[in-house]
């Protein structure tokens, strides 16, 4: 049987398959043993509770999904009180996704979470397209990214993963900046900007107008971003964006991702992560190649 173990920062993953933040929750534990995943990434948490954006928040398009959730979450205190102990029951790496409206707010959240056991890493979400002050504005400026990650690096020894946006001209600059500041890994990509319009009402199908676009339609965009970034950084990349099956996952790994995350497809087939884990094992056995040798092996 192929060995799928992989190191992401200070974490050892039993396999390279995880879930994209915002597309997974403990509800899935009713359907399968989620300890089988390499890691679980929580929905993004902010210091204070966020009600989220006005509905409608979703629209399905020909080749993907538009969403404008707006980081709805119960806030740090409620998350620790109600959710964290549930996550801690699972025998896998727990990564808490975090957003904030200032460097000090990010710091405050991590300081508090660092006191909690069984959290293995943080995904720093500086790339949400659906919130004004706690999202993409952070992730499009290499200076801010450097200051933010340097600050967080001083606070925590746990693994720091920085989630990057593709909605930028030179993603490599942001990636290098995060790496230099002490990030342990990068995850990319977050959603791209998208829109859909109802031609009867002539209104956008999403209340906010512009939304985040995910699913199969963004896979080529995600893949080339992973490919570009893998060439300029040494830290591992968690690739995501439109992964629907093992073949899609393999493309990301060959492009340079050390691990992959499934997002929208969880909504279509809740067992997809398990299928991909099995599919990767089968591929490695058939191709007689070690997993580490496959990463970035694009010719």
């Amino acid at each position: 049987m192929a060995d799928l173990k992989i190191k992401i920062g200070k974490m050892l993953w039993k396999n390279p398959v995880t879930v994209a933040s915002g597309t997974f929750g403990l509800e899935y534990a009713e359907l399968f043993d989620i300890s089988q995943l390499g890691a679980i990434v929580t929905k993004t948490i902010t210091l204070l509770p966020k009600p989220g954006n006005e509905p409608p928040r979703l629209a399905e398009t020909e080749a993907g999904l538009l969403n404008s959730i707006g980081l709805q979450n119960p806030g740090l205190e409620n998350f620790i009180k109600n959710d964290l102990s549930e996550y801690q029951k699972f025998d896998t790496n727990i990564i808490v996704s975090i957003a904030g409206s200032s460097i000090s707010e990010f710091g405050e959240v991590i300081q508090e979470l660092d006191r909690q056991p069984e959290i293995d890493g943080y995904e720093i979400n500086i790339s949400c397209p659906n919130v004004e002050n706690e999202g993409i504005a952070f992730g499009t400026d290499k200076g801010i990214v450097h200051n933010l990650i340097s600050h967080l690096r001083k606070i925590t020894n746990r693994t720091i993963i920085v989630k990057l946006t593709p909605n930028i001209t030179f993603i490599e600059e942001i990636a290098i900046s995060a790496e230099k500041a002490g990030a342990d890994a990068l995850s990319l990509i977050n959603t791209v900007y998208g829109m859909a319009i109802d031609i009867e009402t002539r209104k956008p199908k999403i209340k906010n107008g512009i939304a985040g676009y995910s699913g199969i339609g963004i896979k080529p965009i995600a893949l080339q971003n992973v490919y570009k970034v893998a060439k300029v950084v040494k830290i591992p990349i968690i690739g995501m964006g439109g992964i629907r099956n093992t073949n899609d996952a393999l493309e990301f790994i060959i492009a340079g991702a050390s691990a992959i995350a499934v997002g929208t497809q969880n909504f279509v087939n809740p067992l997809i992560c398990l299928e991909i884990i099995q599919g990767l094992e089968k591929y490695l056995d058939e191709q007689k190649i070690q997993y580490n040798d496959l990463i970035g092996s694009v010719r």
Partner: protein
Amino acid sequence: MLYKLLPIVEKEIINNKYFILTFSNYDMAGQCYPGQFFRLKNPQQNFPILPRPFSIHNVYENKVSFLIKKVGTATIQFSAMKVGQKIALLGPLGNGFTLHQNKKILIVSGGIGYAPFPFLVGKLNQMKNEIFFFHGGKTAEDIFSNDVIDFTEDGSIGEEGLVTDGIEQFLQKNQVDVVYACGPQMMLKKVTEICKQFNIDLQVSLETIMACGIGVCCGCTIRIIENGKMVYKKVCKDGTVFDGYKVVWNE
């Protein structure tokens, strides 16, 4: 909640617009509660991407059935499927209706809003309730059964007019304890206004676009007034049934 790939065991074509698909699974049928729903997807089709939510229409002999209206790509794909072909089912999901005992109950449905009620009526009958069932549709094609009081907008069957006109007249002469309603949002809004006049408890089953269907993504939220404050609730997990008076209806 279970996720299974199951063959269609029965397919009943009602008319040009509506059909019923039935699946057989002991575990799934055993978990079903009136007002809950399943998400169905044809695994052979990549588009549409997301599974679609359907109310549990009825449950009997370990079978679960879904009344489906041909409205878009997914439902047209389902209508073309044959007995023996497999569909991916996730469910049962959501909370469903709060059941009552020994009450006078009014059920109001519009169009495909009829879907969850045969299962509910079966349960309510077992609990010795007196049930009045009003159903409305655009034309005779939108009417499903003879054991309800029917309204059609074109008068092609039953009484001519809107079902909401019918229930208003009915409530002027009859007292009921609880109203259960499912149908288009404009109808539910009107039902809420009418129930308010007569001060009757109201449970409405809502439909929205969903991504996860299980409470993870927060995509299907609606606005609810709770303790005087407007909050977002997830239709898939907090609902699909809500207190009609608390729903902030869209204009």
